[in-house]
């Protein structure tokens, strides 16, 4: 599903990625590791279609509608409520039976009771849960998750574990993390960036 060969990315003089190769078949689960500044986020942004490589080739066999991207930022509006944010994304992603899907995700991630509150009033962990709802809303075939466990408490992390376990066999994953132990039971490939 993802194929990259000799991929490189530079911002001006600064080279962020160099000679990265990865073959991730449909249904695979790749874990990307590496220290801060090693280019994990850049690599994931390229795979999600948010950035272009400077050199090399990358092929992602998924339409925009089939990609779910979780970045460092939650990509939700702080002045809107959780419900309004997910309704907006559901509209843009043409999610069928949008209301039911939004309600189910908010319930699952423990945000149903605060669905009418503005995101600005949420804790960082609650915002991350909402971001996960946004990623899963359109049931993507490819999930590109950048540090998905960031800011989650133990209950949130367990919820995410359960979600990953549930989707593991049906979806393709590209996950960057500083805690590879957490997802190693799902992994079929590992990419260590220097």
């Amino acid at each position, binding site marked *: 599903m993802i194929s990259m060969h000799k991929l490189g990315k530079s911002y001006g003089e600064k080279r962020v990625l160099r000679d990265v190769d990865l073959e991730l078949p449909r249904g695979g689960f790749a874990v990307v590791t590496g220290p801060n500044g090693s280019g994990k986020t850049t690599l994931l942004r390229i795979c999600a279609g*948010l950035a272009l490589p400077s050199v090399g080739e990358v092929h992602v066999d998924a339409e925009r509608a089939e990609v779910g991207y979780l970045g460092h930022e939650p990509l939700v509006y702080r002045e809107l409520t959780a419900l309004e944010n997910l309704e907006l994304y559901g509209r843009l992603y043409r999610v069928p039976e949008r209301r039911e899907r939004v309600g189910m995700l908010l319930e699952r991630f423990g945000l149903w009771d605060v669905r009418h509150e503005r995101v600005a009033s949420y804790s960082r962990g609650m915002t991350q849960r909402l971001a996960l709802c946004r990623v899963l809303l359109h049931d993507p075939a490819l999930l590109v998750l950048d540090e998905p466990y960031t800011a989650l408490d133990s209950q949130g992390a367990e919820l995410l574990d359960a979600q990953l376990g549930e989707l593991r066999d049906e979806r393709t994953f590209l996950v960057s993390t500083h805690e590879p132990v957490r997802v190693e039971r799902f992994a079929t490939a590992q990419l260590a960036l220097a």
Partner: protein
Amino acid sequence: MNYLADVRALARKDLLLELRARDTLPAMLLFVVSVFVVFHFSLPSSSSDLAANGLLWVAIVFTALLGLGRAFVPEREQRVFDGLVLAPSDRSAIWVAKSIATFTFLALAELLALPVFALFFHGVDGTTIAAVLLADVGICGVGTFVGAMAVVTRARDLLLPLLFLPLAIPILIGGVGASVVDAPGRYLAFLGLYDALFALVCWAAFEYVVTE
């Protein structure tokens, strides 16, 4: 139909954000009234109506610039722009919706600004109002397009006026012309042509602006 529904949802979101945050329209209102007050006391009492017309258009362009500078702030602060760009909907819908929202804020600011102008200087006729509305369309369309380019750069606060003001010169020419001549038809037509031409260019090119 999906396209229009996307535009409606995105524009509604922008209006809702402003209704809650209230950080664009009040600033525009304060600015435009302040400008007229300053002009009122700095212009000699013997100055002509022609000079006052010029000031009206300067105030409109700079008030619009204030609104345009804030247009993409919610998207920039939470990097929501990434989320919108990733969605499978047509990306030009983002531009259309943001232009509609900016147009609404500018028109609301002018709803107060024009009576204040009439109070301090001279009355505003129907031709000037038509010219202002036509100019608003061009200002918001082009300004939103340029704002989307500027928002991803580090020097966005500098880049927006640098890119926008040269593109707004034809609007000023058309607006001032329509306000001061006896037969404003060709100036209004010029503004209409500018709106149509730049709307088409911005609509078609927006996809490339938001793609790296």
